[in-house]
């Protein structure tokens, strides 16, 4: 699978790393990545360093994660986006919903 997860030592941070294209085909794997975690997880990091492309359905999936993690109270960081990915996130005004670094 092009999706890998990693838990921090204290178990509170879950990093989800997506390789290649982040589009509808990763839907199930992406959902599995965060839904099977336990309740100790308080912070999510979506690591896009190896993500080449992101489409509008991936935007929807990020919103699913956001709602799962508590909606407006969710603590989600989107990290290491390349220029193309960053541009799509910013056109969609996702800076207002996520911490994008």
């Amino acid at each position, binding site marked *: 699978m092009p999706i890998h997860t990693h838990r921090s030592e204290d178990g509170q941070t879950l990093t989800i790393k997506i390789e290649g294209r982040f*589009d*509808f085909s990763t*839907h*199930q794997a992406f*959902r599995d990545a965060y839904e099977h975690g336990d309740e100790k997880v308080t912070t999510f990091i979506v690591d896009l360093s190896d993500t080449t*492309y992101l*489409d*509008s*359905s991936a*935007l*929807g*999936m990020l*919103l*699913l994660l956001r*709602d*799962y993690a508590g909606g407006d109270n969710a603590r989600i960081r989107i990290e290491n986006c*390349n*220029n*193309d*990915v960053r*541009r*799509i996130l910013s*056109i*969609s005004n996702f800076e207002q*919903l996520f911490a994008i670094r």
Partner: protein
Amino acid sequence: MDEPLTDNRPLRILIADDSDSDRLILKTLLRRLGHEVEDAANGMEALDIFRKSAPDIVLLDALMPVMDGMEAARHIKVLAGERLVPLIFLTSLSDADALARCLEAGGDDFLTKPYSRIIIEAKINAFNRMRLMHRTLSHHRDLIRERNRKLLEEQEIAKRVFDNVAHTGCLDAPNIRYHASPMSIFNGDVLFACPRPAGGMQILIGDFTGHGLPAAIGAMPVAEIFYGMTSKGFSGSDVLREINQKLGRILPTGMFCCAAMIQADFHLNQLQIWNGGLPDGVLLRKNGARENIVSHHLPLGVLGTARFDAGMKIFQTEPGDTLLMMTDGVMEAENQQGEMYGEQRLARSLNEAGQGDSPFETVMAGIRAFTGNQPEQDDLTLFSLGMVEEGELAGVSERLPQSALEGPAEWHCVYEVQDRTLGQFSPLPLLLHICMEVPGLRRKSGEIYTLLSELYTNALEHGVLGLCSDWKATPDGFGQYYAERERRLGDVAGHFIRFTLTHTMTDRGGRLAIVCEDSGSGFDYRKESSAAGSECRYSGRGLMLLRKLGHSLNYREHGTRAEIVYDWHFSEVATREGSTIQQPGGWS
């Protein structure tokens, strides 16, 4: 070479002996060993036969009437030329001096009378091996000589082609001085200069790892991109990005191009410089102050596009300032003791220069004095650009080279995916590839891909498959949506999605029109897009992306036909006269 290099054919052996009986014995013996034998009664006859039938081995009696063996041996060696024809003297002489004279005359060995069949056979075989080896070596030498000649000839022609591509610019402008020394026919260094359509000029100086043909092959596309893009008005950064991308793709790992890009504006009197891996350049101010132009970047062809930084540093200048740039051949020029010229000697040369001396001449003289005119070990390129008043360069920009980098500018393409292929194949990479042939679109590959991909997704999911994004309102619905998508893809017989791409050039760049049609029954694009604003929905962002990236988006035929127009611009083209300032990215 007409004979095969290894053979088992009988040897042609020439015997010369004035004794009829000895000759007969030897002839019979050799024939029994399977060889073809011709015989002569004296040296003169032997020469005649040798000329006619070119035997492989010659057996010569030392003492014969008319012409003796030694005399004949000398002639035969001359006639044989480069061919190794073993000469064996037949002799009953036992005096060491006489035997030595036989060898001096060109003989290779002796056979003493009376003959021993075993010795004769062994010697003939031994000399035949030597003869064959000699022939193989000569053959190889001839091949190498011929190939080398062809290679030099090809390089000579290739160099002419290369020079036509590489030196079409404005290196002869009055404010440019340069020295470029080829180490072989091809120079591993490149130096290109081209006037910009909006005034000023752009210069690229580079040094490929390696020399000769490999470096020249890398230099060709660099020259084409540089002249093609510069003459169309692309900025130095754009050209760098394009060259970096191209070199990254074509050069093997470990080969790259150290380079500096200089964009000179004589109207604003300003230099923009990017240095990736070249030695420090020097900006010499009119008042004597000096500023080093340090390399802050990796060479071209090393980093991928996403990590490549093409940002150029701006230097304000005045007429009378001079920029010096060089390849590492300048630093590495060696003197007779094997020491290198180096930065300190360069600085010293510049320190010692008098007021009004040309910095270029000063440094060239410094290098020549240091190396004592040693042949240069590395490619050595030194270049100076004088900052002048704009008016002094009148005429230079009129010599814009004809662009070598046209790329497809006006084209039209229809691609239709049908039936079950819809469920198995994504046309997006192919369509993107077609668009990426246009240099101006290549910088925008991410945006073009998004446009194509969102159009395709909409046509497939909402059009052909008739899926409604209302399902995506809940996390579970999201899953059901994609499960249903998978299921419906199994039954798409009779359906199609058709892309029509049209690219045209405009005054300021180009325009890509994309039409995406599908065989579905349409979808409610108004509802889809109106909901995009609300943050709580998980869907509906595709249309928003299309609208924001494209110049215009129109849905027709109940949503089965989407039309989008995407404009791109040459960056920073000719805004000097007008008052409009263009966005560097081109889109707005």
